């Protein structure tokens, strides 16, 4: 049933087919975070991959910057309903991280962990095969602190809360463990095209 008097303002067809259900296009770059923006100094930044409580590999900022750099261009979708089209990021793909450290994923799930005690769960299958990276640059410039700098996860095919800001590492988990928002009403997987926003969404 339609809403009396509501006509709406449709995007062009070209934009509309790039917007998942319930999303609208924004031109700016909204900032969302659970608390204050952490100021993470690259001089003491480390990125660590853990299997449970055991460290598998660790990089300093300088070492991380030596890893192969990949550019990704495309659209991002926030569960708060904005989508931003044609964004450009660069950083290190998870494939290159695993390859560089000789890591074969010991489980099918992991938690991305951040400096502000945030975490979020992502299946390993959604991070490999060129689907995700640790991004350190946005639109060619070092990633600003408000947007997760110096480094954030980028998993653009899932709602953007999965792309953890101020990332400090990945932790393999035996099971699919809920992260910060997943414990607080949001979906375990978060596919925008299936509109998996909240806990019980199919």
């Amino acid at each position: 049933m339609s809403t009396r008097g509501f006509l709406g303002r449709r995007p062009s067809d070209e934009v509309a087919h790039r917007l998942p259900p319930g999303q609208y296009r924004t031109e700016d770059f909204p900032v969302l975070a659970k608390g204050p923006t952490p100021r993470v100094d690259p001089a003491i930044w480390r990125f660590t991959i853990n299997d449970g409580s055991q460290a598998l590999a660790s990089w300093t900022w300088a070492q991380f910057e030596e890893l192969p750099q990949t550019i990704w261009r495309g659209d991002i979708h926030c569960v708060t309903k904005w989508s931003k089209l044609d964004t450009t990021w660069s950083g290190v793909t998870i494939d290159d991280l695993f390859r560089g450290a000789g890591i074969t994923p010991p489980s099918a799930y992991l938690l991305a962990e951040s400096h502000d005690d945030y975490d979020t769960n992502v299946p390993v299958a959604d991070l490999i095969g060129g689907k995700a990276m640790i991004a350190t640059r946005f639109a060619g410039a070092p990633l600003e602190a408000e947007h997760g700098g110096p480094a954030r996860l980028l998993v653009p095919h899932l709602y953007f809360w999965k792309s953890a800001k101020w990332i400090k590492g990945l932790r393999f988990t035996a099971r699919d463990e809920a992260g910060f928002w997943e414990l607080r009403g949001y979906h375990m997987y978060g596919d925008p095209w299936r509109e998996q926003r909240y806990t019980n969404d199919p």
Partner: protein
Amino acid sequence: MTADTSVAPARWQEAIIERIMPRTPRVVSVFLRTALEPRAAGQHIDVRLTAPDGYQAQRSYSIASAPGTEVLELAIERLDDGEVSLFFHEVARPGDTVEVRGPIGGHFVWYVEDGGPILLVAGGSGIVPLMAIVRAWSAAQPKTSVLLIYSARTWEELIFIDELLNTQAREPDFTFIATTTRGPRHRPEDFDRRLDRPLLREILRRWGRSPRHVYVCGSSVFVEAVTSSLVLETVPAGLIRTERFGGSGQ
């Protein structure tokens, strides 16, 4: 920890607009009769509008009413290019039906058992979820203190101003400080300048308490400035919850 299913929202359902009330030149309160029941102060709902051809638009709005209030109140700011906000400002009438989903949110929330002291800092329409906290706190009459610092451009743009003044007159544990950036203050205890670090320090010193819960809501620029100042003023970052709207301009 296991997932808190109490914060998972219900499916889409109809809500009837009972009343629309101007709050400021740019903000209306929309009162909805709905079966949705907010469980904590600070939550929001999703609203969905449908055009005759089936096109739909969704937005999220913070709830201004306290949990347990019979009619759910949203306070919606008019955005000049706002597809949904202009509907509520120019088209919607009492008796109209919209679809709603929620309540949503398990982080930027306050439950009575969370206690205090509570520090609330609002910029502009960022007052809306904080108003729900003020109302829930006031209704529960807990023996804790609340400080609300509310920044707006002018006195006329302070949403809920009469109710806030009444609450302050009635509740000795409620301290309300307004600061207006483009217009004069109306009371000696208020300020008419930007809420920067020295001003925050001055207001916190006067209040004289250490907050146990801190909620900051407003534009990205406002929240960034306030939270940076609070952390520098030694408020632990882990106590500070934020809700931001708008972009960084990129």
